[in-house]
């Protein structure tokens, strides 16, 4: 079986500064794969390149067996790859429902969209309660739920989440991580980028550790969680 997402020798540069230096990784269908690393490791850059918002300087990205490193961002969404960006980037003056509908922008099947809207509300009941409220009035955790619900509205085969736990309270973070697990059980493949290594690795089928643009370590999530290097570098344990 070929991998759902395959990243080969990927390099990305901002002008002269190379942020990602030839990384390789794969995401198989049904997995939760996580990229962990500190600030500036190149995690967000990698995600933005996969979703077509940035262009690689070298390397290949294939999704469902097709090269996507030259495809435009909006077409990549249509292919079934959704990106919930860092910092949530919800539309603050739009209502919850309008935000969700924008998530389904790339789709044209009206009746199914209504069904998915209901599903998003089932997943996050708080969104249903506040469907008409401008999203900018929400707390960080609620905004994150909205961002995830919005990304799910494109009915993705692969969902990429960029630091969903950023700036959230421990309780809210737990709720978000539980949702990631729920989505996986429902059959969505997930690529999760996190600074919170412990939470991410607990969930992950497979994890990759990024350091200044390179993958320095990888392995099944639970194994990485107990590996000495990760413990030292990311979990602050001796």
């Amino acid at each position, binding site marked *: 079986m070929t991998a759902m997402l395959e990243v080969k020798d990927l390099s990305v540069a901002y002008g002269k500064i190379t942020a990602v230096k030839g990384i390789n990784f794969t995401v198989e269908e049904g997995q939760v794969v996580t990229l962990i690393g500190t600030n500036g490791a190149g995690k967000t850059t990698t995600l933005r390149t996969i*979703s077509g*918002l940035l262009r690689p300087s070298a390397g290949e990205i294939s999704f469902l067996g097709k090269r996507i490193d030259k495809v*435009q*961002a*909006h077409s*990549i*969404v*249509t292919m079934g790859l959704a*990106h919930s*960006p860092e910092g949530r*980037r*919800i*539309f*603050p*003056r*739009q*209502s919850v429902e*309008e935000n969700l*509908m*924008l*998530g389904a*922008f*790339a789709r044209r099947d009206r009746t199914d969209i209504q069904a998915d809207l209901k599903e998003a509300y089932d997943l996050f009941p708080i969104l249903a309660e506040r469907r*008409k*409220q*401008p999203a*900018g*009035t929400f707390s960080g955790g609620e905004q994150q739920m909205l961002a995830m619900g*919005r990304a799910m509205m*494109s009915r993705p085969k692969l969902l990429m989440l960029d630091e969903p736990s950023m700036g959230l309270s421990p309780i809210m973070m737990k709720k978000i991580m539980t949702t990631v697990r729920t989505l996986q059980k429902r059959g969505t493949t997930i690529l999760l980028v996190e600074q919170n290594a412990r939470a991410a690795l607990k969930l992950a089928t497979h994890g990759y550790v990024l350091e200044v643009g390179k993958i320095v370590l990888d392995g099944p999530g639970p194994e990485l969680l107990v590996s000495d290097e990760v413990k030292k570098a990311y979990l602050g344990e001796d």
Partner: protein
Amino acid sequence: MNIPKITISPRPNVGKALLAGGAVLLIVAALLAWSYDSTILGDLSISGNPAPLQEFAIVMGVVGLIEAALVHRRLTSLSWWDTTSSARALAVGTLVYIVLIDYNIAYQSGGVINLDPGAWLALVGALVMVAGSFLLAPVKVTNQLKVHGANWLEIVVITATLAALLFMVAFILRGDDGGSVLAALAAGGTFGVLLFRGGFFTWLSVAAARHRPVIMLGALVVALLFPLTQNGTDANMSIAVDIAIFLCAALGLNIVVGLAGLLDLGYIAFLGTGAYVGAMMSSAASATIGWHPPFLVVALLGALTSAVLGLIIGSPTLRLSGDYLAIVTLAFGEIFHTAVNNMDGTNGPDLTHGPNGIAGIPDLNLFGFNFGSTHNLGSFTISNYSNYYILLVLVAALIITIFSRLNNSRIGRGWIAIREDERAAEAMGVNIFGLKILAFAGGAFLAGLAGTIQAHATPSVVPDNYTFQESSFLLAAVVLGGMGTVVGVALGATVLKLLPEKLRFIEDYRLLIFGLALVLMMRFRPEGLIASRRRQLEFHDEDENLADIVQEEHVDEQKANA
């Protein structure tokens, strides 16, 4: 539009009495003579025979009495009406109105000594009304958005409002000297602000959303009936044609700026392109192209040429985000002006006859209907300019239809997303470049279409009609009226074009006044005179009450659509 909030400990009973008393004084005054001179502001010199301006004073007085009667006896069916705010607006507006008239009489007849008792009495009446209205207690009203009348009642009210609008506009235009026009404007403004402060327009906007076809059709009928108020004369109709062309262009720009959020500073060049194509291919003696197809073909060609120019300057710039588009369009406007100024045969191909332009463009003839002659409709005469006016109203209706269809569509949602957060929109799968170029070239297409009509409606097409100043006026009309709303832009375009025509004395200061008005608008009402609620929220996003209103309206709209 903001009446200053003065806090005086309210004495509702005294206030009510003063308001009613002032109103009675005003009505009595209106029946007396205001001036010795019968040539000033119509004829205000005959007691017992009120002139139109005095009739307005009577109406103001009667409304004042009604407001006074409403102060305590609050009818449940009118519990949404804000008596106090509207009474204050009425009183202040009346005072401004009377002062304007009195000043005019005194100015024209050489001193306040020449004011007749009626004028003084009216002034006193207005002052008493102001005093009374500010003694009224603030009232708590029910939410206007939740008031639903019977269907027939709502339709009647909408129709009546439109009819009143037509009457008011016809009346303002009837004035031929600055003073009368200004006074009529003050009267119109007073009634407008009165209804606004009372909450009528909030109610109307929701009712209109429920009866969208009624208000659209009604507005179209009113616009088409307007020439009948002019008795076949062309004086006002030529201004109306100018306004209509300006309005078509402003509505097109509204799609570009108001919906897609693209700042276009050279939009007039697209109108110019259409006009030049129309002129060069017309059967004028000075036309420069030997092929004279029927007008419909020319109109399409003009619009397409504009759209192609839009594509050419849009496709490299729209890939960038930020202010590049503004700079490039600014340059494009200048290039257009310079180019048509120079294509005179000596510096380049002789396409436009340079600064002389293309003159003597014949009147349109569509399907055997000659736009150059008058037509009779029963006892009414439709003048030469009225023909063009009617055609332009239909074009404007077309643009408005396109606008509202787009606004409520998937494409419209994409534009909103781009306006709010381009990067996030891209991640949602919005084709940013495609949607931007659609708005930009589409706007150019509509301007080009209006331009081809302009070529025939105005006697000649010359480069100086298409300068940066015109572009900035178009943008000012959109911003002043309210970006992204049709009514707002219509108001903005009418005000910007009409006032300099009717108030000749401000001509020299018009740039100064518009500049000042824009600065004040940005400070006090950045969303424009008539703003879409959503737009308002974008400027005042800390206002939770407003957020609630938007929520309410949204629910109502959805119910109406269901």
